[in-house]
């Protein structure tokens, strides 16, 4: 068994192209999952309303079923109801509905943590509930929740590898194709794994920076 480092260098452009798509898909997935999580979190906080039941069912269902099945559901299911999207869009939606369920729980806890007195103060100043939520509570929640959002982005980036099962050539699929074609299995998967580790560590660092920038001045 030999390990040919040059092989990795020669084929790095292909893998980097896959990495690009992985990053893109992860960011779009997060962009969709955050508002979804917020809406669901608000419903989770309204006890005794019909949307509360729906939100709780959504969270439990999607947290306790594999993301792969959810991606299949969108990928195979959408064309049946007349939505013929390209695979990339279905993949992003599939990832977002899975991670939205986790983010909803995170946001619910976050909103519950700041809510009480801030809300009362905002109401005392004459803001409506909705305005207080938008202007006072949510900006604080997002700051407070940034580490959790960063964490979810890392998980999203890792789960974006599942899109290789619906024929999207992101990093994992690029690696798999390369390995099957050349047989240089060790080289390819070591490189793919290294790229994922670099990506997830990099995302963690970038978000820590953002957190620092967005912090409230003391």
């Amino acid at each position, binding site marked *: 068994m030999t390990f040919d480092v040059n092989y990795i260098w020669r084929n790095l452009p292909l893998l980097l192209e896959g990495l690009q798509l992985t990053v893109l898909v992860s960011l779009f997935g997060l962009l969709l999952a955050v508002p979804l999580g917020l809406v669901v979190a608000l419903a989770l906080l309204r006890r005794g309303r019909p949307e509360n039941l729906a939100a709780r069912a959504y969270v*439990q*269902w999607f*947290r*306790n*079923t*594999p*993301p*792969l*099945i*959810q991606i*299949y*559901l969108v990928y*195979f*299911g959408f064309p*049946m109801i007349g939505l013929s999207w390209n695979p990339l869009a279905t993949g992003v939606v599939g990832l977002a509905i899975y991670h939205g369920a986790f983010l909803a729980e995170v946001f619910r806890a976050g909103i519950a943590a700041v809510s009480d007195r801030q809300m009362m103060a905002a109401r005392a100043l004459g803001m409506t509930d909705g305005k207080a939520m938008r202007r006072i509570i949510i900006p604080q929640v997002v700051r407070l929740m940034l580490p959790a959002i960063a964490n979810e982005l890392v998980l999203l980036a*890792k*789960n*974006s*590898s*599942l899109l*290789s*099962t619906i024929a999207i050539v992101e990093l*994992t699929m690029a*690696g*798999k194709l390369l*390995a099957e074609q050349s047989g240089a*299995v*060790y080289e390819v*998967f*070591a490189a*793919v*794994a290294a790229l*994922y*580790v670099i990506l*997830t*560590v990099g995302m963690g660092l970038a978000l820590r920076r953002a957190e620092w920038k967005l912090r409230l001045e003391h």
Partner: protein
Amino acid sequence: MPEIAALKYLPVLVAALATTAKLSAMVVACGLALGVTLTAAAHLGGKAVALAIGAVGYVVRGMPLLVFVFGVYFALPPSFTFDTKMLAAVVAMSVYMAAFVFEIFRGAIAGVPRGLTDAASAIGMTPRLAFRRMVLPVALRMTVAPIVNRTVMSIKGTSLASAIGVWELSLAGREIIQRDLQPFQVLGMIALFYFVICWAVALAGAAVERRVSFEH
């Protein structure tokens, strides 16, 4: 009357469920055992061993499970005498789970307040006794929720075995959909199977957590 695909294929799906259940049980059992072993090794083996296990664990946790599964599967030599796909799936998923279990235990042990061990040594306990009687009981309570969480993740993760051709729920579902074009019924049924297992594990975990927690 139109045929109901989910019912027509129910026997097939139940057969596939058996593989998913078997795979899940093996992965969770091996993952927990290996994770605990690694924690013990890191604890007893000195700084260098702990550092090495920690570094490997960090890298494994940083990559997607699917990449790890592919890596192990393609790296195994092909064999006609036993099922390489199943073996690769069990090995890769167990090691992946163990990397997380290790981190959960390591974090919990490190999270026990220093004052507790100080107090133990002040009343004359040896470090070893203090670890067994003070640190471990406190740390283990903290691990219940994350371990349950990780177990659910591992069960959901067995769906990725389909990517290397292990015939379990997800692969069976894909085959049926491509033949019969009833994605909602078939995937709904499959999701329900996964949901029942994961939900049961989560509920059992919550019950254990209530039982062992300090606050009543």
